[in-house]
């Protein structure tokens, strides 16, 4: 128990982890640019998913949207976790 509480980013190891993560994302973007995606629903004229970097963007947007939906709902539905126990 000698370690002092640390916040992320203060130690070198954590910094390295952050950098590796960033590097992976950059690599994904780079590789994705070279891969040919074919449109899944070409028959319906939908080819947005064949655009380069569609899926990274889609992932980011979905992450944002879902979290925002959750948090919006949370405002209305949030209760103390003893809510039902209080009966």
């Amino acid at each position: 128990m000698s370690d002092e509480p640390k916040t992320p980013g203060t130690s070198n190891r954590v910094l390295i982890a952050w950098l590796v993560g960033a590097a992976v994302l950059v690599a994904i973007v780079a590789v994705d640019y070279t891969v040919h995606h074919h449109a899944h629903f070409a028959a319906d004229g939908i080819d947005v998913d064949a655009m380069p970097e569609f899926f990274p963007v889609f992932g980011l947007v979905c992450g944002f949207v879902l979290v925002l939906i959750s948090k919006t709902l949370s405002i209305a539905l949030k209760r103390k976790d003893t809510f039902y126990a209080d009966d």
Partner: protein
Amino acid sequence: MQMTDLPPAAVLFAGALLLPLFKGKWRFAVALALPLLALADSWAVITEGGASFIPFMGMTLQPVHVHAATPVFATIFCIMLAGGVLFSMNDDRRVELTAAFVYAGGALGVAFAGDLVTMFVFWEVMTLGSTIIIWSGRQNDSYGAGLRYFGMHALGGVALLMGIIIVVTQRLHEGAADPLAFGHFSAMVDGWSHLGWDNAGMWLILVGMLVNAGAPPFSSWIPDAYPEGSTSGTVFLSAFTTKTAVFTLLVAFAGVEVLIYLGVYMAIYGVVYGVNANNMRRLLCYSLVNQVGFMLIGIGVGTKLSIDGAAAHAFAHIVYKALLLMATGSVLAMTGKFRLGELGGLYRTMPVTMWCLIIGGLSISGFPLTSGFTSKSMVVQAIVDESSRMAALGEPHTYLIVTWFLFQAATAGVFLDACVKLTWFIFFQKDSGLRPPDPPWNMKAAMIAFAFICILLGVFPGILYQILPYQGEAAEYAKVVYSLEHVMVMLGMLGFSGLAFFLLLPILKRGSYIHLDIDWIWRRFIPRFWKEVLLPLLQQLDNAQKAILESLPGRGMRDANLPPPIARRMGNMWAVSVPVFLIVLMLLVYLVVYFVIPTL
């Protein structure tokens, strides 16, 4: 007696009876040997194509029957039980282990049920076993949660039973050769879209199965009940109930469109509520709903590949969900804390648990080289194939396109939620000061074994593909599963939804909150309504009734000036006056019915 004469479920039920007789190491050995024995027995039956018949009310029961999806489900149920036993062995919860054997036995029984009655009986056995597991959780609200769980499943069971009776009666009238047979229903009734009396049986069966699958509006029982199990109990719970429901839906209702919509709702619901969840095991329960949603989509699409995908995903899901719950259970066991806000910084002292959790998390999000990738992508591919097939035929298929996009969105979401968020809050974020060690060896062994299976199935999908219902389609798909395009789709989506998590970290605050769900209706609204509206009303009625009784002439006898002994003997004579009045009333009713109705 040959091995194939022995129903696999019976092995586990025998185990449930035997286990209390053993202690210590022997108990461990027996408990671990029995699931493996049941596995061997299952495969003996599967290769023999087992069939046994028992006469029942002029029809035949078929307790050992091999459906196309039986091998994959029977196998995973046995493996799961063995893993769960290994995980739970340091904990002396005797009742729970026995109940787990009953529970798994019920699940295995459903997987081999060749007729509706057998299926229903094992179905209810599962309800019983799982309820006892919840009760032996001894958490704060285990008892109440178990009760709600039991009530929910009892109602589901009634719907299922009612449906079975209707369907069997209809079949008997149609002169079907085997009215009890449990098989492909959706082909028997055309026009699923109409909800008439002649389809009522099918709908009721579907509803009964969907309750167990955690479909809306009954999704909330999963996050309500499962976190109340013990560390090992929740592991058992996560595996069987929902997956047997998936199995039965797969056998009976493949290709029923409504399952797609329900599945999409569940997939999104699981993520949305999961993001908000603070209890780590409750978060995993929400993701369980999300994953079952994927399976329902697979069943609803109903092509061979999508059914394969649903079955494979159920297999993979049992493993990684158990792994995730083992890991979180280990954290709970070692720290006694389950709120994400109270944890953090555990990577220092629990590396094994951390890596297992990460592997489980990657699997649940379908990361390449994990089992989730090889199973889930089958469903995705099936949606695309079915869509282009229908496009070629000119049939409406827009819903499939929408489903595909939402499916992918939910995939991205579950990575954010069940992998990144969970790992981050438990093992990293700010240091909570907790320094617990890794759990005892048996828990570590169980986690490592399941993590190994996740990776194994991710790297060598052929192992799983060859026991799927439609092996030909699966083998075809095995050739393209690791195409660069597939891999890059997943990496791109997952990587950047992870980025979204870190970008949004400031608003992902962690308080001790729960979020209201539909179960608010029966947990809060109905009890309150009963207590504050109906109950006073009923009491008013009761008082009114008493007042009327008091005013009846017979009542006067008590107060009349009769000599005391007679008055006492008359005591409660007035209580007779109401029934006598009813007698006269009934006579009147009968006379009216007899005299008036025939003349009408």
